[in-house]
């Protein structure tokens, strides 16, 4: 076993060596500009890009022409929201999204509120972090032009009822954007079946390279139009100018092809591994709480709170394992995770949360080591915790008058 152990696959994934291999010819031999129409260098690059476009489209059941390359999911989310608002502003000025979206959606929505006077509804989620389709329906007005709901949450792994939301959007004639960054390549995503009109996703979350992503833009039923957010050479059907990063796109395509072939087996293996990790921990420790949905969640995600132990100190005690915490101390804002707070998780348990993100290259022994180490560290830190001591003395911590600082 090699250290440190990587269990933070929601942040990014290592590249699959097969992806790297597919990219290599496009740096030095086939270095051409895919937009160069009149020589062999351009044709070779274009061929690489078009193959990738097909591989990517196939994974999400789209047409290759519906894939618009971007620098990543953040750009895709910006392009989708800003592009739709600019294109359809005469039709309406209201968009619906949810309170647990990634910051790339939430902050884009806030910018649109502040700069373009757009009205935004931030839907609440249930205690498992799920958006309720009936809430989406109830929020729709005759001014609604876009619904943007994420496929699966990056912290808690909860998968939203996308197909039902897609159905409502279609019925009401409203465009539906889905930030599927955490879902694509991990679980089946089908833009046709799910009624998705625009979809953001990124290569580096699915064993591809960093720096490339895509926005799926539906071409028919309905034909979706978006206003470009960058001026330039009119690449990508005029929706996103800029010379295509051919090696990255080729790698993205290969990553999608591999996910299509291996996703089902990966998901089964990782879900079993994740469940074993969860069971080992809950069998050894009391007061461990699962955050997110018990069943409707990404197969490789586990998010749990350890009462009486602060998340950052837990990470510090397990420094040979790469993990993430919803603790305020791990964020720049000193606020605990807004996602956990939106589910109604108390601030003290939000501070105590740890996210495990398993991946294609995670080994059984790594997960077993992580479980052992977490159990040891939580036990040690609880011995050190005045809250644990008080709870053991039978003091109800909720009745204590704390001096907030």
């Amino acid at each position, binding site marked *: 076993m090699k250290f440190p152990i990587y269990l933070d696959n929601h942040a990014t994934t290592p590249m699959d060596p097969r992806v790297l291999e597919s990219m290599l010819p496009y740096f030095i031999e086939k270095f051409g500009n895919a937009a160069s129409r009149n020589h062999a260098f351009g044709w070779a690059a274009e061929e690489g890009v078009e193959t990738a476009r097909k591989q990517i489209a196939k994974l999400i059941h789209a047409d290759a022409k519906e894939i618009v390359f971007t620098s990543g999911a953040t750009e895709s989310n910006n392009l989708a929201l800003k592009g739709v608002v600019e294109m359809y502003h005469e039709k309406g000025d209201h968009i619906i999204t949810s309170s647990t979206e990634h910051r790339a959606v939430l902050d884009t929505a806030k910018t649109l509120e502040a700069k373009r006077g757009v009205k935004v509804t931030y839907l609440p989620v249930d205690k498992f972090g799920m958006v309720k389709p009936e809430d989406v329906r109830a929020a729709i007005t005759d001014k609604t032009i876009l619904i943007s709901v994420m496929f699966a949450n990056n912290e808690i792994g909860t998968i939203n009822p996308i197909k039902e939301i897609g159905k409502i959007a279609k019925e009401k004639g409203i465009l539906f954007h889905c930030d599927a960054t955490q879902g694509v390549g991990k679980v089946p995503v089908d833009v046709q079946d799910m009624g998705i009109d625009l979809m953001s996703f990124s290569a580096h979350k699915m064993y591809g390279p960093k720096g490339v992503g895509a926005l799926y833009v539906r071409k028919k039923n309905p034909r979706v139009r978006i206003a470009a957010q960058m001026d330039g050479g009119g690449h990508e059907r005029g929706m996103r100018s800029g010379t295509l990063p051919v090696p990255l796109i080729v790698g993205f395509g290969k990553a999608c092809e591999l996910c299509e072939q291996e996703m089902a087996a990966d998901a089964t293996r990782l879900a079993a591994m994740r469940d074993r990790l969860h069971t080992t921990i809950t069998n050894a420790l009391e007061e461990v709480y699962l955050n997110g949905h018990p069943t409707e969640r990404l197969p490789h995600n586990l998010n749990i709170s350890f009462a009486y132990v602060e998340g950052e*100190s837990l990470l*510090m*005690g397990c420094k040979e394992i790469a993990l993430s915490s919803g603790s305020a101390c791990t964020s720049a804002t000193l606020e605990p995770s807004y996602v956990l707070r939106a589910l109604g998780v108390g*601030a*003290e348990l939000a501070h105590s949360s740890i996210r495990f993100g398993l991946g294609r290259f995670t080994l059984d022994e790594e997960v077993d080591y992580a479980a052992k180490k977490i159990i040891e560290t939580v036990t040690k830190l609880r011995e*050190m915790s*005045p*809250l644990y001591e008080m709870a053991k003395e039978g003091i109800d911590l909720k009745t204590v008058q704390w001096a907030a*600082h």
Partner: protein
Amino acid sequence: MAYSEKVVDHFNNPRNMGSFKKEEEGVGTGIVGAPECGDVMKLQIKVQNDTIVDAKFKTFGCGSAIASSSLATEWLKGKTVEEAGKIKNTDIVQELNLPPVKIHCSVLAEDAIKAALADYQKKADTK
């Protein structure tokens, strides 16, 4: 964020971790912070003839909060009550090389010292 060597050392080898009985004679207890803010410190001193002969802590919080309180107990031992009241959070910041975002940990440790001293005084006065 990288931690200073001293923070890591206190975190891995906390000094004087534990508890005294609150009602024991000469013991002053300070509990500061709040669970929803992500840190709670309990600091206790044991005073004999105006000198702190022993100190203990328990902390719920990040590594820097644990290190700040662990360091505080080290510094408290052997000091008179008056000297203990002069420990400043800035001394802790300097000793542990705390970055700006962790200064509140040192403030909390200073508050905990003050609270423990006040509790000791209150008990001594009502005797």
